[in-house]
């Protein structure tokens, strides 16, 4: 997404708004004026003008501005919306359309039809009570309008200082209005240098009556800058109305200093000292000022109005150059590159595609049962298309993960500064796409992991030097697709996780019992347990608010999983694995008794006939390797059937494998995931449901949960046996 795209979006949006405007005008013509319709027209013009202004498309801005002024009069009732005005507005809409077309054709600097424009402007201005079109004010306020103001040399002696002097007394309400004098001072620092500042707490009242939300501080500032007066005044544009902002230019008049001292509440002597100390006045000049002030007190005329006189914004001369231009023939070449679609419409489409997938499966089933070859062929053809439609529909919601990644360069920069560490960020795989709905939910967990890595993972500069590592730590964000999942990695080259320390802490916290045998991976996963924190010292960044347990919960809510790989002293990688989409999966259908289940196909490794295998202790030897398994019949408490020839489906999640024992293998199947109702919401091992071609419901197995559960059960069993042997 860059400015060119934004420009295309502007064209698209303007066309939509013009269509809406036209529709509202037609409606008024047919049914009479309504506030709603008038507002809609006004908003359309308002929005087009606002967006066009962002790109300095002056032609459209100035024209729409006049139309908007007329509409404003209509809106507040001072101008009746009669038939003539209706057709004038319709014509104006058409002309704005031409201006928009010109933008689309990259010819925005040319006036499409100066003659027509002139005629419309005259008609509009007549309604505004403006005679000459030249009097129409152009309201474009661009950064470049501020022209250097030449200080006119007037009568009276000047001071010798080359600095600006700023005297600021903010309104008591400034803080309550959401404005902080500090931010103005910081901003001032970006257009010059504050050489001297005195913060005046004099107005701070007694503790009893002091209102902590009111502003009492005043500031006297000496400032070096090449900026012009308008720019410096502009710093205070939002507070100028109710605050006392006095700006004295370099080599300002002695008289102005007299007025300054005269008008401020602080005692003259004290202010004088400040001015001398900051270099605004020399001691001699101050003496002159004080002497003159005593002699001829200046009338209490608000200095602000005197000094803050602004240059009038130069009246825009309406472009009267009647340059003849050929209407661009290739106007339409820049056709719409994208259309804006409401997410709800997209979701409705995806729902429909889901239904189509189910209906397609039903047709397949019928074809198969009828054993009608040509029907079967036709059904297969349709299935292929349905599959493609499904994939195409899902890609509509896919966005590059770069959308999430793009905020991190700034985050890393800020946090590393805050931590006093040097950290470089490497981003790879930003093009990797995932479902839009996940992007939004991924942002916070990633932020937390990144902060954690920078705070606890990457060592301090000293520690890195001691460890013989490069001073600059490296943080890496990476994303890639892997067998139907998207994998997102956050890696650091920091100190790595200390297995023993984590285990110790977990035992201390009562998260695990000391004699529980745990793999390294399982130990690392403990940091995701609620209430776990390895950092001795809770720092500002990671130690506050949410913990890693929230990260895990968020990821699991997306049917994803978090995994940690870490090497002591070398670094840590947090790996998030998420399904590409939340809507439709390729499934593998199995049966246990009368119940049907679906296993996400990408997690199925192979299917084995197990009649000849030794099935003791829920562990099976597969090609020499032990494979723990679980019987779905036992797991879901389904009735026993005799003489059934069981099969085993080997599934894999992450690096772990497990077996699921079922009665019957039914084959591949596209499953449209429906959320679990109340009935199954609490059942572990089920992640969703789907409707089969024949209308029956099948449950989708939660493989990550099942794999973990199976692993745990077998580990517990092994250790139990181990203990027995040791006794």
């Amino acid at each position, binding site marked *: 997404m860059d400015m060119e795209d934004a420009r295309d979006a502007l064209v698209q949006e303007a066309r939509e708004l013009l269509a809406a405007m036209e529709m509202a005008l037609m409606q008024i013509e047919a049914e009479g004026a309504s506030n709603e319709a008038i507002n809609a027209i006004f908003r359309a013009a308002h929005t087009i003008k606002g967006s066009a202004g962002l790109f300095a498309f002056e032609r459209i801005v100035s024209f729409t501005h006049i139309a908007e002024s007329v509409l404003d009069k209509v809106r507040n009732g001072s101008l009746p919306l009669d038939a003539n005005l209706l057709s004038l507005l319709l014509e104006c809409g058409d002309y704005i359309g031409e201006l928009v077309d010109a933008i689309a054709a990259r010819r925005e600097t040319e006036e499409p039809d100066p003659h027509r424009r002139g005629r419309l402007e005259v008609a509009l201005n007549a309604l505004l009570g403006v005679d000459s079109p030249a009097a129409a004010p152009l309201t474009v306020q661009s950064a470049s309008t501020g022209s250097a103001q030449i200080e006119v040399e007037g009568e009276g002696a000047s001071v010798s200082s080359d600095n600006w002097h700023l005297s600021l007394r903010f309104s008591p309400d400034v*803080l*309550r209005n959401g404005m*902080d*004098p*500090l931010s103005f*001072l*910081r901003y001032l*620092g970006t257009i010059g240098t*504050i050489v*001297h*500042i*005195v*913060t005046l*707490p004099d107005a*701070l009242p007694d*503790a009893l009556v*002091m209102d*902590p*939300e009111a*502003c*009492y*501080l005043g*500031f006297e500032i000496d400032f070096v800058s090449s900026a012009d007066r308008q720019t410096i005044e502009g710093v205070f544009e939002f507070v100028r109305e109710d605050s006392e902002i006095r700006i004295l230019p370099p080599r300002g008049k002695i008289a102005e200093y007299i007025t300054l001292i005269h008008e401020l509440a602080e005692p003259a002597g004290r202010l004088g000292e400040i001015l001398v100390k900051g270099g605004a006045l020399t001691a001699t000049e101050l003496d002159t000022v004080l002497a003159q002030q005593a002699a001829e007190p200046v009338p209490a005329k608000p200095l602000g109005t005197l000094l803050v006189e602004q240059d009038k914004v130069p009246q825009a001369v309406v472009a009267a150059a009647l340059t003849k231009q050929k209407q661009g023939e290739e106007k339409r070449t820049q056709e719409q590159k994208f259309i804006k679609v409401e997410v709800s419409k997209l979701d409705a489409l995806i729902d429909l595609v889901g239904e189509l997938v189910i209906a397609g499966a039903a047709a397949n089933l019928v074809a198969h049962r009828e054993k009608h070859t040509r029907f079967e062929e036709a059904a297969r053809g349709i299935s292929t298309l349905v599959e493609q439609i499904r994939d195409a529909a899902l890609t509509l919601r896919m966005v590059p993960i770069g959308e999430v990644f793009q905020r991190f360069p700034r985050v890393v920069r800020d946090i590393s500064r*805050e931590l006093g560490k040097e950290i470089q960020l490497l981003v790879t795989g930003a093009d990797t796409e995932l479902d839009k709905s996940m992007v939004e939910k991924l942002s916070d967990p990633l932020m937390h992991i990144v902060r954690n890595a920078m705070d606890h993972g990457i060592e301090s500069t000293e520690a890195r030097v001691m460890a013989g590592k490069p001073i600059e730590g490296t943080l890496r964000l990476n994303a890639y697709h892997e067998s139907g999942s998207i994998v997102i990695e956050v890696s650091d080259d920091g100190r790595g996780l200390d297995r023993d320390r984590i285990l110790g802490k977990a035992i201390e916290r009562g998260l695990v019992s000391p004699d529980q045998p745990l793999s390294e991976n399982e130990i690392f996963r403990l940091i995701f347990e609620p209430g776990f924190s390895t950092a001795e010292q809770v720092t*500002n960044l990671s130690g506050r608010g949410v913990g890693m347990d929230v990260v895990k919960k968020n990821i699991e809510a997306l049917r994803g999983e978090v995994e940690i790989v870490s090497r002591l002293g070398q670094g840590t990688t947090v790996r998030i694995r998420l399904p590409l989409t939340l809507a439709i999966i390729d499934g593998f259908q199995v049966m246990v008794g009368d119940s049907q289940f679906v296993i996400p196909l990408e997690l199925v490794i192979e299917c084995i006939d197990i009649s000849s295998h030794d099935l003791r202790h829920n562990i099976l030897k597969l090609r020499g390797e032990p494979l723990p398994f679980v019987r779905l019949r036992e797991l879901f408490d389904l009735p026993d059937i005799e003489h059934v020839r069981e099969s085993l489906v080997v599934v894999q999640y992450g690096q772990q494998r497990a077996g699921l024992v079922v009665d019957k293998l039914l084959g591949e199947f596209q499953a449209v995931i429906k959320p679990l109702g109340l009935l199954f919401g609490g059942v572990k091992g089920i992640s969703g449901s789907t409707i089969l071609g024949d209308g029956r419901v099948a449950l989708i197995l939660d493989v990550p949960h099942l794999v973990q559960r199976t692993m745990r059960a077998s580990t517990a069993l092994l250790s139990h046996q181990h203990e027995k042997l040791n006794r």
Partner: protein
Amino acid sequence: MPLTTLAKGEGAQFRLDGELTIFHAASLKDALIAALGEGGPALTIDLSGVDELDTAGVQLLLLVKREAARLGRALIYSGHSAAVISVLELLDLAGTLGDPLLIPNASR
């Protein structure tokens, strides 16, 4: 924006954490004035946990400092966080609110 009491009575110690801004200024003013009331002749307020400071916060620090002086108490701000230091530098208030004797350069 909690004010934590670390030690009471003689040599009382307090700590400010989080945002020292207008959003919390009202409740904090009361808490700080109360802290002055219960403290002994000398008290310390640790600012190391302050991660945001605005004009309202600066005013409070000035007010409490002045109020302490009025009551004849020695009030010392210590452990200035980076956020606090940067504001004090901007406003040239390090002399007033910095209590530099207690923040040697090495600790920064």
